[in-house]
């Protein structure tokens, strides 16, 4: 069976999540993706970003690097060495796309800008992804996704109405940009197949994140209203909240119409709730939402979150247990989709990699191999694939071309 992206090859110049995350998805569906690093200054996720396997710091023990780089080939090149640069160009010549997430301008200074790459590969699709985009007054500004989530409005929109904004875990916005970046590359590759034309895609992670905020941005433009965080409440559903259960677990519940509310009161064994004048109509429930949530919490405290979810769902009520990170590995629905796939890594041993949210009936994606160790595929890529004679490879190695 052929893979969806069989025969497609791409090269990555970049680090952390926003660039490499894209290549990972494409590699899962069969693209050959070559992750290029400097051995002198490896990917920051290898060097200073936990978790490391068994808390032992090591270039090939970094969990976050592994997470974004499975199924790829890993090579090292010294791009400041003339022969290193030449080899980079030769990799690109044989490729369909390049993904880079260096600071704007760095690729051109290295001799790998769009014009320079296109001279040797006119069909090339180049995706440049950066915090702020390639142009504009703040283009050169460096930054991480963990912070960009605040600039793009998400922090302001999470937390209690009367409390501080909250931190959103990890490089949240990078993940949005990864999906939009993958889309742009795939669309440009299709255009390339049909027309022979290349493309330069300028993706700002900030603007990608703002796509999720489109509705509140329009609300300000249309009505001048500034959207604010409002805990777990919702303008339509009520109740709509997260309730404590036994053993520190939590269950979310929401009711979207009068019938669902009535079913909820029966399923909860709280028929008095539906007769209580404070909760008789949506407007009343809205006016007494805090009291309603307190009453529901009193009841859920004695319940097991998992069983409660199943019981309410059986009565056709929106409900779900809040999964912790550990529980994502045991969730039966996640398991049924084979989201976590095990590989044996030379230094980290057996561990799991994550598949994305979509599966293709005829050409399913899969985790193909563990994340590469630093420079693991140098000989395979430069000698076997690119055709460098082994003597020449040794010679260049001696000159520091792969350092």
């Amino acid at each position, binding site marked *: 069976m052929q893979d969806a992206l069989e025969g497609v090859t791409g090269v990555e110049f970049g680090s952390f999540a926003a660039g490499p995350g894209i290549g990972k998805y494409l590699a899962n569906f069969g693209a050959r993706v070559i992750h290029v690093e400097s051995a002198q200054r490896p990917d920051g996720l290898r060097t200073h970003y936990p978790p490391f396997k068994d808390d032992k710091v090591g270039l090939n023990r970094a969990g976050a690097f592994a997470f974004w780089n499975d199924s790829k080939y890993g090579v090292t090149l010294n791009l400041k060495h003339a022969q290193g640069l030449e080899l980079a160009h030769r990799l690109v010549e044989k490729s369909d796309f390049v993904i880079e997430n260096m600071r704007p301008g760095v690729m051109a200074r290295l001799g790998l800008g769009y014009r320079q790459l296109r001279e040797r590969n006119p069909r090339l699709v180049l995706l440049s992804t950066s915090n702020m985009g390639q142009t504009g007054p*703040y283009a050169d500004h460096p930054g991480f996704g963990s912070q960009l989530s605040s600039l793009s409005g998400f922090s302001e929109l999470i937390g209690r109405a009367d409390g501080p*904004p909250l931190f959103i875990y990890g490089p949240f916005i990078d993940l949005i940009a990864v999906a939009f970046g993958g889309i742009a590359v795939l669309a440009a590759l299709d255009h390339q197949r049909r027309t022979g034309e290349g493309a330069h895609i300028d993706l700002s992670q900030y603007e990608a994140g703002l796509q999720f905020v489109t509705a509140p941005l329009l609300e300000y433009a249309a009505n001048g209203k500034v959207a604010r965080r409002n805990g777990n409440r919702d303008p339509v559903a009520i109740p709509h909240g997260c309730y404590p259960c036994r053993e520190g677990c939590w269950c979310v519940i929401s009711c979207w119409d009068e019938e669902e509310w009535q079913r909820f009161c029966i399923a909860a064994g709280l028929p008095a709730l539906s007769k209580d004048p404070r909760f008789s109509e949506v407007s009343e429930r809205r006016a007494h939402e805090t009291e309603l949530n307190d009453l529901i919490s009193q009841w859920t405290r004695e319940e097991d979150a998992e069983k409660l979810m199943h019981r309410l769902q059986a009565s056709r009520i929106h409900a779900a247990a809040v999964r912790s990170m550990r529980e994502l590995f045991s969730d039966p629905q996640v398991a049924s989709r084979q989201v976590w796939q095990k590989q044996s890594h030379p230094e980290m041993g057996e561990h799991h990699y994550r598949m994305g949210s979509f599966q293709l009936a005829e050409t399913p994606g899969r985790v193909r191999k563990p994340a590469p160790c630093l420079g693991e595929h140098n000989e395979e890529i430069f000698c076997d694939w690119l055709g460098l004679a082994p003597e020449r490879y040794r010679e260049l190695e001696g000159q520091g071309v792969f350092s």
Partner: protein
Amino acid sequence: MTMLLESYRVLDATGPLGFLTGRILGDLGAEVTKIEPPGGDPSRKWLPQLSLGNRPAEGLFWLAFNVNKREIQLDLETEAGRDRFRSLAKETDFLLETFPPGKLDAWGLGYRVLSEDNPGLILVSITPFGQEGPYRDFLASDLEIMALAGVMSLAGDEGAEPMRVTLPSAPLWAGVEAAMGALTALAYRSSTGRGQQVDVSAQVAAMAAVAHAPIYWDLNRVNPERTGIYMTGRTLTGARMRVLWPCQDGWINFIIYGGPAGRHTNRELVVWMDERDMAPDWLKQMDWSTFTVPELTQEEIDRLEAPIGSFFATVTKREFYERVMDRGMLGYPVATVKEIHEDPQLEGRNFWQNVRIPGSDSDLRFPGGFTIVNGKRLPIRVPEGRE
């Protein structure tokens, strides 16, 4: 040049869980036809709305993700509606849908039937949990999806109520990943002529938002938890680091980092603090050139963060934003939608596009398409075919 997906047709029969998918394909140039039930999609009536004089007001969530589409109404509960649907599906490259699993089959419009007429058809099915599995028939809105995706367990104060983002984001995670799935299937079709069904789970799509957090469990049996305005997981000592800080007129996001960019930021911050006589001597004497985060203890972090917190209380958001941009420091203000509308960077990239919605007597300042291709921002086109 032409737009990237100009030659393709999309039939978009989705509800809110899939709105973004068709919007993205439309942004890239595909011709997207939105199928609505008789009377229009229910989300047109959701609050908040754009008022349109003597026409019915338009829900802004609907509007946000249904530009770049033309609209038709079709009643799939009737045989005539289903016949029309089937004939439209013959002429399309992509069919996007969010019906409960099994619904299309029950209507006699499952993939097997549709692909007999059109073997190249790419059917993108977007549901909360996917087409199979123990939860496939569960009811789930954004709240339930974010709970089961683990996202809520990482937001909120320590030990307190898990939080969702106040705006629905599960539909957007699902919608964006579905577009990636659709185009992956397109690559296969280009080389073989064969279409296929793409099965998207919103639960797994939203799991993207927890990034690599599950890996702490997988590698080291550490279960990351929510920590309010702090972050954990960056030190080997288990210490937490502050992310969000109150400032003069709101909040800012600042994290102490190591690495070249972090060291530069820390140096610059001390210079700035010193300009206001707010940098203690021991902080001015810090050697940042070898500074790294993983080995720091909680005590060391608290000592560093105390004077920084006092300093930030004297700074405004705008001042902070301008300074970090000017000096290449890491950090951003916690922006509101108003401040995003005022951001010079977005202005400088022509992010905004004034769009005249039919029936409106003024332009609406619309966030632009998600990227710039060969120097050209993907444009917003006003919905056509509206009554």
